[in-house]
């Protein structure tokens, strides 16, 4: 399978601060890649580097095998980009925005655009400055889709949208995905959105890509182990470090452990503490993301690869 997006040790410093740290990722053609991370994790900067809007300090990114920092107009023609906040010229009407965009694209699909605008009930005479944030997002999406892109890059497209508009937006996105096997990369804070549409996820933690694997693999790999004691839970032994242990915390008489690839070794360790009961809980993507990203950052295990196996989790240094 060929990759539409490839980055190799992509790094960006703003002054002394490293906002994107040696990110290497591949987005295969036809996949839907969800880029996750907390605020200021480096998602927008990474996306901007992919589009040549920000120049990397080190490393390289390519889109359709072309250097991302010097994308040709021909390659930009194949890539649609929805920037965060859906910037549009607010003095334009929807119709003027359509005409402005159409003039740049030889592949602009007027019929499709009309269908989408009809679906969103957006008249061409509507002034963009009078539209709600959600409606501006819909206009942006309609314009992006009408250019018939092979790759769609969306930077937090549902940020600030209410639940209904967000659901509508995502359903449209799913329909777009189903057309012609387009490749989509999108960043989001809303894990439910990602879970619905992304077949692969990347998680940035402080600019480092800690996770790059299929969505299901990540969900299945993270487990919360709840140990109940008849008094205050004992402390975990500090040595040797437990591979795959992301986080532990005491809640009353309970000890909660967040573990990657829970296995016999972890079970033995848990049982050695002498709990009254031991429960292993599955997590949804949101819970898995929260538990994973709030662990000590330097010691987070890294997920890379397609299948859960021993080599897909790499133990990093201890915080």
């Amino acid at each position, binding site marked *: 399978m060929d990759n539409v997006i490839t980055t190799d040790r992509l790094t960006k410093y703003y002054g002394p601060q490293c906002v994107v740290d040696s990110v290497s990722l591949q987005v295969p053609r036809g996949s839907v890649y969800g880029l996750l991370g907390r605020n200021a994790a480096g998602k927008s900067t990474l996306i*901007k580097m992919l*589009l040549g*809007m*920000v*120049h990397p300090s080190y490393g390289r990114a390519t889109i359709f095998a072309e250097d991302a920092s010097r994308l040709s*107009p*021909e390659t*930009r*023609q194949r*890539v649609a*980009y929805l*920037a965060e*906040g859906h*910037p*549009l*010229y*607010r*003095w334009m009407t929807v119709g003027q925005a359509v*005409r*402005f*965009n159409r*003039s*740049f*694209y030889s592949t602009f699909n007027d019929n499709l655009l009309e269908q989408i605008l009809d679906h969103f009930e957006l008249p061409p005479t509507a002034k963009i400055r009078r539209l709600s944030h959600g409606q501006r997002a819909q206009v942006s999406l309609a314009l992006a889709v009408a250019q018939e892109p092979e790759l769609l890059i969306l930077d937090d497209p549902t940020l600030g949208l209410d639940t209904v508009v967000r659901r509508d937006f995502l359903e449209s996105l799913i329909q777009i995905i189903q057309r012609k096997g387009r490749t989509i990369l999108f960043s989001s804070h809303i894990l439910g959105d990602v879970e619905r549409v992304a077949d692969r996820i990347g998680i940035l933690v402080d600019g480092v890509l800690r996770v790059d694997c299929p969505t299901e693999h990540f969900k299945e790999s993270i487990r919360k182990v709840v140990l109940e004691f008849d008094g205050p839970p004992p402390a975990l032994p500090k040595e040797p470090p437990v591979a795959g242990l992301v986080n532990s915390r005491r809640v009353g008489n309970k000890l909660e452990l967040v573990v990657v690839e829970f296995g016999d070794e972890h079970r033995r360790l848990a049982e050695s503490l002498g709990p009254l009961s031991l429960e292993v809980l599955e997590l949804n993507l949101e819970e898995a993301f929260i538990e994973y990203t709030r662990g000590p950052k330097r010691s987070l295990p890294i997920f890379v690869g397609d299948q859960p196996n021993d080599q897909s989790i790499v133990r990093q240094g201890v915080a």
Partner: protein
Amino acid sequence: MTRALFAKELRETAGIVLLALAAYVYVATSLTGIRVPPMFLGEEGIPFVGGEFLAAFAFVSAVLVVTLGLRQSLGESYRGTFLLLLHRPASRRRLIAAKLATGTGLYLVCSPLAILAYAWWAATPGTHASPFEWSMTVPVWKLWISMVPLYLASFLTGIRPARWFGTRLAPLAAAGLLVTLVQFVPWWPVFLAAIVLLAAALAASIFFVAGERDY
């Protein structure tokens, strides 16, 4: 594509240009004896020599070019629309060139209207009790063309990232100083060469910054 870019720039700068045109009309009419309140301008005496028109023209033109330059550059940054514009499938050089061509063109077309209107009045016999030669308009034409580098410097000021106001305004301040100094050069060819060189250097800087900065 190019037409769409020009149309967008024209629409976005139309308000500024209309205000400037109103100011030029005010200057020209005030000095031709039609006193329009509020009266900021005095009597000029000899047209183009008294200095009133030159000062007023310099003021209005400077405000026009600085506002135009900043509107076209900083305006896109503040609205976040640089990300939209620069992802259009056209070279960055072409997108910026469309902006510069529109801004320069608008200034070069609309500001001479004031000079020509005032000169036409001054050249009409019986309108004022003083002589008139077209050569008397030379200082105003020098000022007119000198505003082009100031416009480019203003655009550069808007597009160039800087840590604080001092360094951000540096291109505008430097160009302002150079444009003022060059007014004292008595030889036309030297004057023109200096203006063209300054404008070329500023345009090159704009294209370089637009290509290398982060958005």
